[in-house]
């Protein structure tokens, strides 16, 4: 893979390089919480999705949700990581009102997933491999609301105990753009795997951004950790601002201290946490309420078997096997839902047309990426709620392939399909939009046009070939676009040449 050109922060004393590592917290897709049977659904009344276990009532005990284990393993396999058949949960001890137990159940010493990696691609096409140190399972905390009362904070434990995967990258990231590409790529992968919905505005995915700066060739500088940044753009801004701040600080004679910071989306800056407590000492130790988490190769194989084709593989296949351009391949594989939609429509079209998928792929791909995406954008809909189904699209494209519909008619019928939700064939039938190839009708139309434009006929016949296009347009208009273009061409030539 080619090295990306180094991102540089220009300082008064020279160029600085930045070093970034990301800890992404991704909420695991599961109905119930990691250690309790309460629901994980977003948006309920405060404390309505809280069990006595989540509220850490005296004597309550955790019992693990197997689905969360499965999702973590599947995610690990998707980043080519080592899967640890023996792992264990540790308690991370600290006090905070949204942490009822006074500890978070997490995995420090023996995480479920070991080393893996994610390959990213920047806008300029440069590719880079980002190392992933580990993925561990842990509990999410609750939420404190600070603006409902002048002197009190309010605590809602609904999110408390939801399963998170903490995906820890190596400090391999060297620019805001790489940070953005990494998070976007990770989000895409998790959504493909189905282990996290990636809804960043609902907090399903958020990153702790570790940034340090150094002069080229120097060892790592002291890093700061900016907590819970919840959009790709904000993550890039946090990296950029924090790097600049550190360079300015060092160059003005200060020192970077290892601290926890917060990102302020309003000003795109970071600031030290005000309620900063004494240096953290989390006193990790194995959770004695839980036994080791153990599974076998058969379980891993089952997880592997349940993985879909992953985005990188899919994109490569679209290019090499289906012959799509890199652009189309990227667009159609960006989201699993889009890719699934495309592949369903592709298979259906090929079947209806009676040609191999490789023959029709480009047509289907082009139609989806231009016409369908355009229409969905106008309607403000996702591909999942498209008013036209993949099958219906296949029917439309088949009518184009067999000559029933001309290019303009295809667009017309598609519009009607979007409006009415009806199938292409029935719209063609009802509205009489079938392409006309009958020479009698076409000849009659040509004659009418010729009769109405005697001067143009004469000009054409005297050698002004360019007028041929004019006659085609007139005839098509006369026939309301339904005439088969090939027949019109042939007949026009014959009749004008007489």
């Amino acid at each position: 893979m080619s090295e990306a050109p180094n991102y540089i922060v220009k300082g008064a004393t020279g160029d600085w390089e930045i070093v970034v590592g990301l800890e992404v917290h991704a909420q695991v897709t599961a109905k119930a919480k990691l250690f309790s049977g309460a629901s994980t659904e977003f948006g309920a009344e405060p404390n309505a999705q809280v069990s006595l276990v989540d509220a850490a009532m005296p004597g309550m005990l955790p019992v693990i949700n197997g689905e969360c284990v499965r999702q973590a393993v599947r995610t690990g396999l998707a980043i080519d990581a080592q899967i640890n058949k023996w792992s264990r949960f540790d308690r991370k001890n600290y006090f905070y009102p949204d942490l009822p137990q006074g500890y978070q159940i997490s995995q420090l010493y023996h995480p479920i997933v070991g080393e893996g990696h994610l390959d990213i691609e920047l806008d300029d096409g440069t590719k880079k491999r980002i190392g992933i140190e580990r993925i561990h399972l842990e509990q999410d905390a609750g939420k404190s609301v600070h603006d409902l009362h002048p002197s009190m904070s309010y605590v809602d434990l609904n999110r408390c105990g939801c399963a998170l995967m903490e995906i820890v990258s190596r400090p391999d990231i060297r620019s805001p753009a790489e940070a953005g590409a990494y998070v976007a790529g990770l989000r895409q992968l998790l959504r493909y795997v189905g282990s996290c919905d990636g809804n960043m505005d609902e907090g399903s995915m958020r990153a702790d951004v570790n940034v340090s700066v150094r002069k080229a060739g120097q060892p790592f500088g002291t890093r700061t950790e900016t907590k819970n940044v919840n959009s790709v753009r904000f993550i890039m801004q946090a990296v950029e601002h924090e790097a600049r701040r550190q360079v300015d600080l060092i160059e003005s004679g200060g020192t970077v201290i290892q601290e926890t910071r917060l990102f302020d989306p309003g000003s795109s800056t970071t600031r030290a946490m005000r309620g900063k407590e004494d240096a953290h000492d989390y006193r990790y130790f194995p959770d004695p309420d839980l036994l080791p988490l153990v599974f076998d190769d058969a379980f891993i194989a089952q997880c592997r078997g349940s993985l879909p084709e992953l985005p990188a593989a899919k994109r490569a296949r679209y290019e090499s096997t289906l012959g799509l351009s890199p652009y189309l391949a990227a667009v159609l594989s960006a989201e699993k839902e889009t890719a699934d939609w495309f592949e369903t429509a592709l298979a259906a079209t090929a079947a209806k047309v009676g040609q191999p998928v490789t023959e029709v792929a480009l047509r289907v791909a082009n139609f989806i990426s231009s016409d369908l995406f355009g229409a969905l954008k106008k309607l403000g809909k996702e591909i999942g709620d498209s008013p036209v189904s993949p099958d219906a699209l296949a029917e439309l494209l088949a009518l184009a392939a067999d000559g029933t519909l001309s290019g303009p008619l295809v667009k017309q019928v598609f519009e009607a399909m979007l409006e009415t939700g009806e199938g292409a064939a029935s719209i063609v039938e009802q509205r009489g939009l079938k392409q006309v190839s009958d020479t009698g009708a076409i000849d009659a139309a040509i004659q009418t046009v010729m009769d109405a434009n005697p001067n143009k006929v004469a000009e054409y016949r005297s050698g002004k070939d360019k007028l041929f296009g004019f006659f085609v347009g007139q005839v098509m208009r006369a026939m309301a676009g339904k005439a088969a273009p090939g027949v019109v061409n042939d007949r026009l030539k014959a009749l004008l040449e007489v």
Partner: protein
Amino acid sequence: MSVDSQTVRKIARLARIAVTDDEVPGLVEQLNGILGWVEQLGEVDTKGVEPMASVMPGNMRWREDVVTDGGIQDKVLANAPDAASGFFAVPKVIE
């Protein structure tokens, strides 16, 4: 290793237990007494010994991913020293 008054204050802070100045000397003495006594474990040769991972041998059972709990806001809040509008209330937290 022995603890001094500064260490005792630091531990008390970590454990979120307020200690008065009067209490510190006594705690220094008691903690040192206990820690000095448990330190005899250092003399046991534990090379190659795995720390006990679970008391009884066995692996963890897994729950099915089914919603079986929740919807008990009243029970959750029943013993709260301060609650309002379905939330637990605490003195303002500044981030």
